[in-house]
């Protein structure tokens, strides 16, 4: 009997090859898929061709006022003209270098995290980002020290305010959330009870009622004469609200750590806080990166709610400009602009968390 000779590989039949196969499999595999493809294709073209025409081709990007605009195209002149207000709110123009400096410092601590730099440099920049940066930002933006003129929080606004709210909110909500999560898994019933009530209360009510409560009830809670800055009240509200959500996310991670890890950490003779800090939390937080990212994104989106209690964040700044009669016909452009800004931030964060999750995937799923 002859020795078996392997048959050569043959290319698949013509209908199963290359772009023809791709089209057949992905767009026209059955008659109803073909119909769907045609209908949706038609809908996409009939919607997006005019939209792109309006938003880019017929649009006017620069000019002196609403008069420069073309009735058939988008009026981006509006954004160009009021950009300063959208970024800084009522912040005095002559002091805008101060927030600009903060933006630069922020970029300095964040951008290198995405670059292939030595870990030590990245680590120190990150530590600066969560300690030095908020302090520096406070002294620079609020002023009142080191010869800088004081700028009251009522004049802060725009994208600057949105970023401040989000950054401080995240910096505060994460540690509080971790503590609450540890408390909820504590062996001491009193601590556990307090944490459960606290977490479940904030999770049950809408953020807007908390912001209302902060603005109408806080003055009643405090001793006579003590007043709270409006911005600070909003920050406290947002932070408490999101820390409860953060706590639930972190708790999920703590529960996913196998019993053996807790026991091994204890067997090493480490105290409670050391065990948590060195062994349990690094693993638990890694597991729940997607959850943390989602909480951060929803905190970022929730910062818009401050406009309801009278702060001018990015959305508030645009909305107030839209009530100016000079810009009465640019409603859609205004909201699309804000939507685009928020979308870039949120989508960017969710993509980044995906990447981080993949990078940190060390494959030890027990």
């Amino acid at each position: 009997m002859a020795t078996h000779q392997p048959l050569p590989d043959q290319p698949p039949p013509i209908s199963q090859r290359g772009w023809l196969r791709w089209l057949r499999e992905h767009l026209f595999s059955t008659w109803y898929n073909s119909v769907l493809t045609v209908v949706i294709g038609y809908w996409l073209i009939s919607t997006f061709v005019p939209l792109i025409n309006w938003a880019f081709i017929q649009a006017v990007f620069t000019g002196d006022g609403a008069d420069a605009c073309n009735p058939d195209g988008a009026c981006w002149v509006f954004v160009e003209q009021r950009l300063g207000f959208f970024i800084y709110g009522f912040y005095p123009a002559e002091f805008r270098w101060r927030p600009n400096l903060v933006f630069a410092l922020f970029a300095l601590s964040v951008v290198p995290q995405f670059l292939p730099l030595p870990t030590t440099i990245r680590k120190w920049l990150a530590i600066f980002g969560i300690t030095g940066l908020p302090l520096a930002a406070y002294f620079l933006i609020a002023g009142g020290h080191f010869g800088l003129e004081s700028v009251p929080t009522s004049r802060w606004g725009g994208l600057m305010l949105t970023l401040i709210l989000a950054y401080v909110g995240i910096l505060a909500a994460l540690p509080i959330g971790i503590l609450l999560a540890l408390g909820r898994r504590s062996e001491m019933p009193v601590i556990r009870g307090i944490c459960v009530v606290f977490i479940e209360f904030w999770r049950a009510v809408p953020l807007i009622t908390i912001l209302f409560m902060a603005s109408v009830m806080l003055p009643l809670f405090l001793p006579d004469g003590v007043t709270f800055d409006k911005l600070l009240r909003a920050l406290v509200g947002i932070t408490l609200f999101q820390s409860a959500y953060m706590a639930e996310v972190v708790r999920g991670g703590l529960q996913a750590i196998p019993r053996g890890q807790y026991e091994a950490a204890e067997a090493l003779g480490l105290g409670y806080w050391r065990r948590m800090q060195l062994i349990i939390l690094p693993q638990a937080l890694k597991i729940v990166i997607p959850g943390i990212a989602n909480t951060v994104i929803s905190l970022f989106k929730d910062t818009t709610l401050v406009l309801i209690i009278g702060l001018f964040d990015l959305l508030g700044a645009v909305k107030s400009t839209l009530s100016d009669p000079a810009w009465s016909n640019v409603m859609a452009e205004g909201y699309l602009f804000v939507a685009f800004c928020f979308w870039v931030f949120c989508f960017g964060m969710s993509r980044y968390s995906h990447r981080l999750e993949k990078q940190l995937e060390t494959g030890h799923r027990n």
Partner: protein
Amino acid sequence: MTTDPRPLRPGRPKPWNDPRVRSVVFQILAIAGVAWVGYTLFHNTVSNMESRGISTGFGFLNETAGFGIIMSLIPYNETMSYGQTFLVGLMNTLLVSGLGILLATIVGFVVGIARLSSNWLVAKVALAYIEVFRNIPLLLQIFFWYFAVLGALPGPRQAVNVGDIAFMSNRGIVLPKPVFEPGAWVMGTGLVIALATIVVLAIWARRRQAATGRIFPVLPIAVVLIPGLPLLGYLLTGGPVSWDVPSLGGFNFRGGITAIPELGALLLALTLYTASFIAEIVRSGIVSVDKGQTEAALALGLPARRVLRLVVIPQALRVIIPPLTSQYLNLTKNSSLAVAIGYPDLVNVFMGTTLNQTGQAVEIVAMTMAVYLTISLAISVLMNLYNRAVALKER
């Protein structure tokens, strides 16, 4: 060698090193701290309210409200009490949440399934929808629909005319309103009979299948019967329903049912926003069912739709339902953003206008939060029961 006469017992640690003592002390401190904070808040509040001359208690609920509300599901006018404003707001919150949950579920399931379509274009459009709507703040979406879309509609005189029966203008959407004349009860009865028949049929079909194995197609019959019987009643009694078609009179429409633009914008935004999250939940729920499950069911000779109904859906629902209910809760809580565009929900009417007029901050905030707390806790209890019921039995 001398032996120690004492019995062997672990030595007592110093009290400050004893974990049990530590734990008790720590917990007492925690209770004391909470009690102190509670007391301080209470004390400050009472003294602040005294100094401002605010009376406490829920007596204000019986006082006359004196303000109008643009939309109410229950009878309401200015002469009614603050208590009634609470109910009006609550009903409006429940209305927009209920409709929003219904619509968001439909859109979310459609998009979630479309995301898994074998059609590349359909899957990509669904993905684009999800990524766009979940990454834009809800409040912004509400503003967009309210100011930029519905607000940009022409006034009633130039309203967008949909076949002469419905009109869209910046005053809202006006739809024809059915008017039931005597004899309309026949249609209602038809519907009841149809529903009852379906229930009986379903039970009978199940018993017969168990006994003889024959499968009875209940679903197609239900699809025909439920609209069919009322329609038959309508035809037999000579059409006892007429439509109150809106018409333009003066500066606004007369007749018909008007959905105010605030409701439309809020509903649209809540639906599209929440649906993008539901779609992801549905997708991951379906994906979570192992491919081997489908293969095993197909290998047994089950047709594709039975594989879906008997094997895939029951398993996917276990994964889908818990996060789905938390989205329903989110939607209900998010409906409070109504306050930003003036839809008269609970927060807007009660925590807004009523609170401003009465100044009873503590009572009103407490009542409002109690409503949301009750809804949340009730849903959590139901969810825990559900989870316990469907938990897969493992070793």
